[in-house]
C-alpha cells in the first residue's frame, strides 16, 4: 500500500517535470528563434533585441529551462506579455477560480446524470426503459459539446433571455453561479452519457453476482437489493470515473470556456496564443497539465482505497 503511494507520487513528480520540459522545448526551443516568433517578422531591431533579452536567448536552453523551473517552483512564472502589467501567477490564480468550479460543477452534474440514467437502465436490462435510456446515452455521447453550447446560448440566453449568454462577473457578484449553469450543462451532457453506459454496465455485472442472489433469497426487498447491495458496489467505478472526468475537465474545458467567454484557463490560453504570450502559455500548460495529472493520480489512489480487491493485484 505505502509502496504503491510512494511509487505513484514519484511517477507524478517525474510526469510533471517532463511535462514542463516538453512544453518549454516546444515553445521556446523548437521555433529556433523564439524572439522572432514573438515579435513577428516586421518588428524593429530594438523590439527584437528586447524580446531576446527577456527570453534570455543568449544562454543555452537547458540553462534557461533550469532558471525558469527554479523560479516556477517558487511560484514565479514571470510577467505576461499580452496582459501588460500582470504577473502570470496572478492571471493563473484568477483563471483557476473560474476553471476549477466549472470543472467540478460539470463533473458532479455528469456523475448525477450517469447515476440516474445508468441505474434506471439497469433495472430491467433489455427492457424498453433500458433501450430508451441507452439510446439517449449513445446520442448524448456523440453531441459536439460546443454545438450544444451554441444552441443553449441561442435558445435559452438570446431568444428566451433566461440565462446570461456568457462572460463572468466575478465571485463577488450574486449572479456568479448563474453564469456557470449553461457551460456546465454543455460540458456535462456528453460526459454524463458516457458515465451512464459505465454505471449500467457495472450495475448489470453486480446484479448477476451470487451475493445479490443470496440477498434476495434472504428475503430482502427489491429496493433494498438494488440500493444496499448492488448500487454500493456499482458506485465504485463511478467514483473513480468521476475523478478522471474532473481531471480532464480541468485542462479540457478550453472550447466551452471560449464559447461562453468564461475567463478560465482555456480562455486565457487562446488569448495568450493570439498575443504570442510565451510566459503565460508556459504557465498555463504546466499548471493545467500538472493539475490534471495530479487529480487523476489521486482518483486512481482513491479507487484503490475504495476497492480492497485491487490492492492485491
Amino acid at each position, binding site marked *: 500500500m505505502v509502496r504503491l503511494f510512494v511509487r505513484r507520487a514519484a511517477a507524478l513528480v517525474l*510526469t510533471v517535470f517532463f511535462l514542463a520540459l516538453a512544453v518549454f522545448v516546444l*515553445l521556446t526551443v523548437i521555433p529556433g528563434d523564439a524572439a522572432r516568433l514573438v515579435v513577428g517578422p516586421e518588428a524593429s531591431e530594438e523590439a527584437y533585441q528586447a524580446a531576446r533579452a527577456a527570453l534570455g536567448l543568449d544562454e543555452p536552453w537547458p540553462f534557461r529551462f533550469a532558471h525558469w523551473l527554479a523560479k516556477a517552483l517558487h511560484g514565479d512564472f514571470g510577467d505576461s506579455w499580452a496582459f501588460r502589467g500582470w504577473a502570470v501567477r496572478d492571471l493563473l490564480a484568477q483563471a483557476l477560480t473560474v476553471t476549477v468550479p466549472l470543472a467540478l460543477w460539470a463533473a458532479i452534474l455528469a456523475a448525477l446524470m450517469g447515476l440516474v440514467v445508468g441505474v434506471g437502465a439497469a433495472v430491467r436490462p433489455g427492457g424498453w426503459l433500458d433501450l430508451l435510456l441507452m439510446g439517449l446515452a449513445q446520442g448524448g455521447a*456523440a453531441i459536439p459539446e460546443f*454545438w450544444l453550447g451554441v*444552441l443553449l446560448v441561442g435558445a435559452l440566453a*438570446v*431568444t428566451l433571455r433566461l440565462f446570461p449568454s456568457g462572460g463572468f462577473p466575478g465571485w463577488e457578484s450574486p449572479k456568479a453561479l448563474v453564469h456557470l449553469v449553461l457551460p456546465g450543462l454543455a460540458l456535462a451532457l456528453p460526459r454524463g452519457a458516457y458515465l451512464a453506459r459505465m454505471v449500467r454496465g457495472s450495475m448489470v455485472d453486480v446484479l448477476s453476482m451470487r451475493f445479490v442472489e443470496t440477498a434476495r433469497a434472504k428475503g430482502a426487498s427489491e429496493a433494498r437489493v438494488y440500493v444496499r447491495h448492488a448500487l454500493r458496489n456499482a458506485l465504485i467505478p463511478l467514483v473513480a470515473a468521476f475523478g478522471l472526468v474532473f481531471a*480532464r475537465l480541468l485542462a479540457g474545458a*478550453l472550447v466551452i470556456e471560449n464559447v461562453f467567454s468564461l475567463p478560465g484557463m482555456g480562455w486565457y*490560453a487562446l488569448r495568450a496564443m493570439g498575443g504570442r504570450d510565451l510566459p503565460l502559455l508556459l504557465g498555463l500548460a504546466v499548471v493545467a497539465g500538472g493539475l490534471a495529472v495530479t487529480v487523476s493520480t489521486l482518483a486512481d489512489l482513491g479507487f484503490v482505497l475504495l476497492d480492497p480487491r485491487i490492492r492485491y493485484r
Partner: protein
Amino acid sequence: MKNVYVGAGLVGVSVALVVVGALWTPADPTALADRPHLPPSWRWPMGTDWFGRDVLSRVMVGGRVSWAVAAAAVATGGALGFGVGAMAGYLGGILGEVLARLGDFFLAFPASLMAVLLATVLGPGALGVALALALFTVPFFLRLSFAGVLALREQEFVVAARACGARGPRIVLRHILPNLASPLLVQLSVSLGAALLAEAGLAYLGLGVQPPHPSWGRMLREAQTYFGYSPWPAVFPGLVLGLTVLGLNLLGDGLRDLADPLTRKLSPGRP
C-alpha cells in the same frame, strides 16, 4: 448486430455527402446572394445563411476538411501508437513500463491545449491541429497493442512461430496483428469520432484550415453571431457532425459485439 448497420449507414451518408461535395454541390458554397436566412425548404434543404449561401452545399464542402484532418491524424497517431505499444509489450521490462507511462502522459494532456501550443509555434493552420489530434490518438492505440501483445505473446501459436525462427517484427505483424484486428477496427472507429469532434471544436476557435474554406466547426462560429435571425445555419453543421460521430460510435460498439471472444475484453478507450 443492428448497431453495425445503423452505424455504417450514418457513416456512409456522411462520407457520401463529402465525396459528392468534392465533385458537385447543389449551389455555389461561397457565392453571396440576396436571400439571407431562408428556412429549410425543398430548394434549400438546410436553409441559407446570413450571406445567402446554401448551407447544405457548405456542409458538403466543409466536411472534407474535417474528415481529411481527422483521418490523417488517426492514421498517423494510430500507427505510431500501435507500433510503440507493440514494441513495449513485446520487449517488456523497464522499457515497456517507460513507454506505457509515456502514453499516460499524453492521456493527461488534452488535445485542445496541445493544439493551442502547436498553433503558437506553427501558426494556426491545419498541420498543428492534425499533429495535436495525432498525439491525442496515440495513447489509446498504445494501450491496446501493449495489452494485446502482452496477452498474446505467450500463446502457443506465437511460441511455435518463435520456435520456427521468426523474429520480433514478423511475429508482431504476421501472428499478433491479425488477432488484434477487431479491437483495432473498433478503436479506429471510436478514435475517428473523437478526432472529428475535437477538430470541429478547434475550427470553431479559429484553428485549423483558414478562411475562405468552410469547415463544420467554423460554420458554427459564423452562425452563432446571427443566431437571433435564424438558428438553422447553426443547427445543421453540428447535427451532421453529431450524426457522423454517432455513426462511428455505433459502428465501434457493433464491431466489438461481433469481435472474437479472445479479444473482447480490450474495449476501446474513450476520451
